[in-house]
């Protein structure tokens, strides 16, 4: 790092801090409070937990696009590691390189496996009325998968097989289908009838949990490993 670069960096930091700090400190009270609208909307949303209501009702379209973002990242990951048919004889070697195989970690994983699965299920279920939901549960599932993989299992949940492919797509495809079906009934996109909304949201969250878990794990597992120099 040369000196000029360091000075420039400090100057940029200070400038940004002054600009943002002055904005934050002079902020006036906003003219209206969206939380009031939100409180009125919750009873009709089909879920009791406000964050879940925002993610899967009021701003569900954002969530739909966000799952698409995740899917794009996974697609690029798959594209850049894409094992050609010739390579498929030894897909494990790609994975095994990044393995830290220790007995402690292996036994730890075995203990954590049921525990983390239960945590994921609990988080998913809890999301309807308290902190939790598809993203947290999916992240726990992914963490489980990462542990599983790191502890040296060959048949991980993201071995490039048909089932993980289905699970990967199911979340987004299911969400998209549930979003679009409403148009057939003359309602806006994503406008589920409020009497069924609770059930639909739980169903969507369940498939999303699995898909998010698989996607996050896929991002981890499909990183090209050393020795994999096909470019």
């Amino acid at each position: 790092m040369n000196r000029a670069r360091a000075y420039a960096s400090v100057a940029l930091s200070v400038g940004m801090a002054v600009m943002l700090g002055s904005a934050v400190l002079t902020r006036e009270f906003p003219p209206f409070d969206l939380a009031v609208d939100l409180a009125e909307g919750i009873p009709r949303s089909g879920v009791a937990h406000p964050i879940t209501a925002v993610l899967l009702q009021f701003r569900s379209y954002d969530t739909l696009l966000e799952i698409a973002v995740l899917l794009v990242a996974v697609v690029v990951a798959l594209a850049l590691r894409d094992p050609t048919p010739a390579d498929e004889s030894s897909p494990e070697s790609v994975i095994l390189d990044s393995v830290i195989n220790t007995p402690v970690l292996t036994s730890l994983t075995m203990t954590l496996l049921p525990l983390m699965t239960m945590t994921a299920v609990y988080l998913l279920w809890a999301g309807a009325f308290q902190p939790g939901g598809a993203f947290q549960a999916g992240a726990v599932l992914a963490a489980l998968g990462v542990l599983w993989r790191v502890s040296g299992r060959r048949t991980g949940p993201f071995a490039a097989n048909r089932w993980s492919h289905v699970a990967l797509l199911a979340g987004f495809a299911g969400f998209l289908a549930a979003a679009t079906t409403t148009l057939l009934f003359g309602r806006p996109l994503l406008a589920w009838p409020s009497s069924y909304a609770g059930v639909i949201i739980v169903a969507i969250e369940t498939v999303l949990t699995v898909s998010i878990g698989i996607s996050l794990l896929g991002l981890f597992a499909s990183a090209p490993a050393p020795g994999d120099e096909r470019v």
Partner: protein
Amino acid sequence: MSAELWYALVGVVLVAAAFGAFMAHTHLLRRLLAFNIMGTGCFLILVGLAQHKRAPDPIPQALVLTGIVVAVASTALALILFRRWFAATGRTTLPEEDDV
């Protein structure tokens, strides 16, 4: 000063520090670290400032959840490209940019 405003100001410091580092570093992993810290600072500002002198606001909190997932997707994508690039050239920086 409320706790909310305090954390928003911490967010300001984080964004500022990470922005400087992002511009200064050429090592792509260091830039990625800076990007993630900048994002976190941005989220703290979003929630902290919105909740300042107010009840907890679920809307910015939900936005941050979305933002976290988008950030991890971008980070993972960047890492995959980076590892391919490193495997192909042995470089940790972009061409035309010197090593630190």
